[in-house]
């Protein structure tokens, strides 16, 4: 598929299949087209050419069915600072069609899974960045969708917080399909089974994480050099 903004081609002939149940890393420098790729998958943007299929469904044709299958946590957490953690999760659950006891159960389980139960009644805006990132993940994973897309979950966090967030994502491995966007090679190596590297919209490498990132100079990939 391709995506262009006017004359500027942001994604160029990207051809990619992500398997069910794997943790897939999408790597690239800033501006490589990762966010655009995610937006195409979530249906926020439409492809200029080609098509995207999630579980066999095109987000352009049936956005609702695709939204039901995707949980998305953005690089900048999409949170309301004026809501309490529980309120925010309740709202996110409402948006995903949960209600009543099912909603409360999902919130409790998400609070436990991401270890933020102690902060359930605090204002999101007053939380540290690490906790905000966790709330964002909890929000994305609330109704346990089959596909979880996580965009730069550790950017701007201190090393301790990073480790915590990575632990959380690692905990999902094998249970769900996870697409992890990052420019942190260690993170990709640690968490992903397969990775793809994007440079200026083009796919420069695709394969098992150890193979692709195992070379002498994996950073060269970020500059667009094929392995």
């Amino acid at each position, binding site marked *: 598929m391709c995506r*262009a903004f006017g004359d500027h081609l942001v994604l160029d002939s990207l051809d990619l299949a992500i398997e069910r149940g794997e943790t897939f890393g999408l790597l690239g420098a800033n501006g490589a087209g990762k966010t655009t790729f995610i937006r195409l998958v979530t249906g926020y943007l439409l492809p200029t050419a080609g098509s995207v299929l999630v579980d066999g469904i095109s987000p352009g044709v049936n956005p609702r069915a695709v939204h039901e299958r995707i949980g998305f946590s953005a690089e900048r957490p999409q949170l309301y600072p004026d809501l309490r953690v529980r309120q925010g999760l309740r709202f996110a659950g409402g948006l995903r069609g949960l209600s009543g006891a099912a909603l409360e159960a999902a919130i409790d389980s998400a609070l436990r899974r991401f270890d933020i139960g102690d902060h359930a009644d605090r204002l999101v805006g007053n939380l540290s960045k690490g906790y905000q990132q966790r709330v964002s993940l909890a929000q994305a994973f609330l109704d346990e969708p089959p596909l979880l897309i996580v965009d730069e979950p550790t950017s701007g966090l201190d090393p301790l917080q990073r480790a915590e967030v990575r632990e959380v994502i690692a905990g999902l491995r094998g249970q769900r399909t996870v697409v992890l966007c990052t420019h942190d090679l260690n993170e990709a190596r640690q968490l992903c089974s397969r990775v793809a590297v994007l440079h200026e919209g083009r796919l420069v490498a695709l394969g098992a994480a150890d193979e692709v990132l195992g070379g002498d100079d994996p950073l060269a990939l970020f500059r667009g050099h094929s392995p």
Partner: protein
Amino acid sequence: MATKATAGMGTLGVIALAFGLASFQVLGEWNAFNVGNLVLGAGLAALGTVNAFRRLARRTTHADRGPTIEAGLTTLAIVWGAVLVQLAVAHWGPRFDWTFEQRFAIAPATASVVKQLGDDEGVRLSLYGMQGDPRLRATRLLLEQIANEHPNAYSDERDLDLSPEDEDRYGIGSSNSVVVRHGADGGDRWRLVERPTEGALFEALAQLRDPVRRVLYVAAGTGEGDLEQTDDAGFSGLRAALETEGYEVRPYPSAVHPDVPGDASGLLVIAPERRMTDEALAGVRRYLDERGGRLVAFLEPGRASGLEDILADFGLASPDALVVDPVTGAIEGDSPGTSPIVNAYADHPVASGLNRNRMTFFRRARAFLPRKPRPDDRVGGAVYASGESWLYDAPAKLRGNETPARPADARSDYHALVAAGQYERGGHMARIVAFGDSSFASNRYLRALFNLDLVMNAVHWAVEREAEISIRPKSGGLLQFPVPVQTALNALYGVGLLLPELIVMVGAWVWLRRRSA
């Protein structure tokens, strides 16, 4: 960056336009400031718009065009739909009159007289005007509204310059005159109304109707209110109103001819200053007892005309005491409460159409204590002072605007200021309406608030013309009554600030709690 620039340009443009227009609006002429602002504003706004479109064109590709065009068309369709709905409603939509006195609706009295004329031969209202007269629009609307009341009522508009014959025939002197004609094609009977308010048109219509007049005798000779007297204290207004609504008014010199004449439809006695002669009183009593007489009587506190005894025998006893209603403040320089503004009415035909919003004004009144003299009689109050009112029992001693002292044992109650009764006597049905005040119907107060309606409806009920009972059109000053809000005002500045205070407190509490959450 481009987004910021576009939004910035648009905002600056709107600000410049607003200042330019404001300056021009106030000055009414062009100058450097407003022209400069308008040009700058328009330029910036246009630039911002062009920029926004260019940006959009730059960022979209052919894949987006389909959905974009679709969304754009949907938006346009919704906008046009809304505009069409608005146009349709503006054309056909109903309007509701929510004013206290139904200022935009025709008075029931006007509607009913139009219906009668319409059922009869029809009625045509012709407005004569000269081009460019700004008053014509309002009159035209009024006539259309009146003509709407009956399919056999018509209104039209004619150019005064083009109808010299009509001008001569009806004696039309000025633009914005209305000729009201009985019969849709214009019969012989017509009235010219030169200042066509609803009230004036109602009177003209009422005069065209019903050539059969009832004769009403008005007691005279012992200092009664004078129906010829035109100053404030006189009752010439009452006479005009009675004649408009189909009565012929004749004097009843009670001392000379004690018997009420045989053609009397009713008898009106307006507060005699001296005691009526015994013969006259006997005559009134016979009229009521033997001939099913119809009496409308006005009393005054501090006067003894002998009529009080007759009324008492008919169950309308009225102690010689002044009603003091503390709910009404000082009016007319009177001491507080002695001139009650009243809005409590019983369910009686005399008070029909009157309600809490339709007040009547009494100036120094006495009260009635209605009680049935016989089981079959029907006696009761029609108009009441407020439940706070009490009786001051020495009205004659009260000087000027001296405040009546409330005795410790004075009882507060709803006191009847107007009472009515219906009695079967000698095989006839007698009816009496008694008012505790006569200045109520004097020229000075007859057209204040709803006094006229109460008096006229009392007369109509007494002579059994219930169909005429109605509410008459009012002139613009109708809302000119004091609103008794002093208590509420005190409440606002006393405890009324509680609500805003509570809101602020809740706000502060929420804010403080959130800071620490």
